């Protein structure tokens, strides 16, 4: 547990990291608790359209072109964004770590084969894949998660592979081979825990980019039509951009805050996790 305390001490030295964490916790709080505090469904028309923020205290963020509560949309959107962001990242990590570990540890033909596959997936344009998948399957949360993880895992695989290639030659790994340890155990018990730091740092960035991608897809109308996501809201507000710019701006600000928070946390994690190497 002393390790956690040390980690926190190093983390909180960077003010921006602490701010990022606070913002992130705020967003998570909103996502968790918010939907119970605001009106049930963000798709419900509850008031006159084009209501500006601050005009009516019952609807502090105003209403959109059809009269839906924007605050409700933001709150539910938080949940959607975080769910998709986390799920897509988890899937990308699962695939990427496995591929990277196998390629980096065994090298030779498994490495060549897996790297060709990785390159293939890296060249797929995100939105094109989304359009294709949405055309084949119905647009849904699952489709988006699949799209995002499909284009994200290669970066994870590359990172993990690089770490494995270098760690595998280290003497402590050789020592495990010498005592007769099985390969699976070496990969998961010995090497993987030692490359967690860069993976963790990358994860926060991945969640941020997943949220951005999801917003983009929803904006284009490729997202789940039943979910009110921030991207959807921006898309809806697009038509009224000239006069009622708040309809797009407010969800846009929500995205910016969340992505910024994730990036700051990522930087903070990076600084907090790396100094251990300097402590020799």
């Amino acid at each position: 547990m002393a390790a956690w305390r040390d980690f926190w001490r190093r983390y909180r030295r960077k003010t921006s990291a602490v701010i990022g964490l606070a913002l992130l916790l705020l967003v998570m709080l909103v996502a968790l608790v918010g939907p119970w505090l605001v009106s049930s469904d963000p798709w419900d028309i509850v008031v006159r359209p084009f209501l500006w923020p601050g005009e009516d205290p019952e609807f502090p963020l105003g209403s959109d072109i059809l009269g839906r509560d924007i605050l409700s949309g933001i709150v539910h959107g938080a949940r959607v964004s975080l769910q998709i962001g986390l799920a897509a990242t988890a899937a990308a990590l699962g695939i990427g770590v496995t591929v990277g570990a196998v390629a980096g540890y065994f090298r030779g033909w498994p490495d060549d084969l897996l790297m060709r596959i990785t390159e293939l997936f890296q060249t797929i344009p995100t939105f094109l894949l989304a359009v294709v998948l949405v055309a084949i399957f119905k647009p849904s949360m699952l489709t988006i998660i699949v799209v995002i993880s499909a284009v994200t895992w290669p970066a994870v695989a590359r990172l993990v592979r690089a770490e494995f290639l270098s760690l595998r030659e280290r003497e402590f790994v050789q020592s495990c081979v010498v005592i007769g340890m099985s390969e699976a155990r070496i990969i998961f018990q010995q090497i993987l825990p030692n490359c967690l730091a860069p993976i963790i740092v990358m994860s926060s960035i991945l969640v941020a980019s997943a949220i951005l991608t999801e917003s983009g897809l929803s904006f284009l109308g490729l997202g789940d039509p039943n979910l009110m996501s921030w991207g959807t809201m921006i898309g809806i507000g697009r038509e009224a951009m000239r006069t009622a710019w708040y309809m797009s701006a407010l969800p846009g600000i929500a995205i910016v805050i969340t992505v910024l928070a994730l990036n700051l946390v990522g930087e903070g994690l990076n600084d907090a996790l790396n100094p251990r190497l300097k402590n020799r």
Partner: protein
Amino acid sequence: MNVPLLAIDAIQVLFPTRQGTLRAVDGVSLELRRGETLGLVGESGCGKSTLGKTIVGLVKPTRGSVKLDGAEIVGASRGELRRHRARMQMIFQDPYASLNPRLTVGRIIEEPLGVHNIGNKRERRERAIALAQRVGLHPEAMGRHPHEFSGGQRQRVGIARALALNPELIICDEPVSALDVSVQAQVINLLVDLQREHGLSYLFISHDLSVVQHIADRVAVMYLGKIVEHSPRARLWSQPLHPYTRALIDAVPVPDPEQPGLRDQGLIEGEIPSSIDPPSGCHFRTRCPFAAAVCAEREPPLRKIAEEHWVACHFVERAADGQIRAP
């Protein structure tokens, strides 16, 4: 029990590279007897570390055989290799890289026992504590991580781990090269004591002749992948026959100002050639003051010149009267 504990026969380890074949180990045969320490010395590129790693199974030889107590290791099945591993362990050079930084010292020492399913959890823990104490570590050390210890202490952890499976043979790959003199002495003394207590055999690999001479019973000198001379410790220093061995001994700065200094003698010229495409015939001929035409044409075989004394040089011979002549 006449079978040597370790018998290496014609081992070759060749690596293909873009510039040519890297001949890391180029035909080495050696024997190690039970309870003895065989020192392996040489400078960079001589292949001693690669040979050590080949013996312990980290590197696959291109050709040749390695027999542990008569049983062939090269090409052994996974199960067989695992059984051999329990009898043969390794101590590594870099105390900062040879321990998993995320594990506690106790875990590190226990690990070999867990891998081979020896004893239950409590028994393993007790054995690990006993090992740690034997190598001079406090039982409190068990819960700490490697980065909290000095280089010498980490090396002790590595030794305790190597002892866990009660091996008969330990390959020591430059175990003290990264340590300060006083710490080096601690670790060397520990290794000598452990050998006596447990009847261990060591293959002691080092570039430091003074250390090897102190700890080894017999010494083999390597140059560019080959053994050039091989003899009992005392004889190597009192009667070195191969020109490279002599050059190596002359080059070591002796910690005694009364001994002839480096300024006073003819030192060997030139640098070690690359192991890719080494000189033809005798690899040492490019730097040897006695090189002649035959040295470029034919490779000198490792010949027995006296009891327990082998040399690979065309000009070392035993005359009819029993006297040994060397260039």
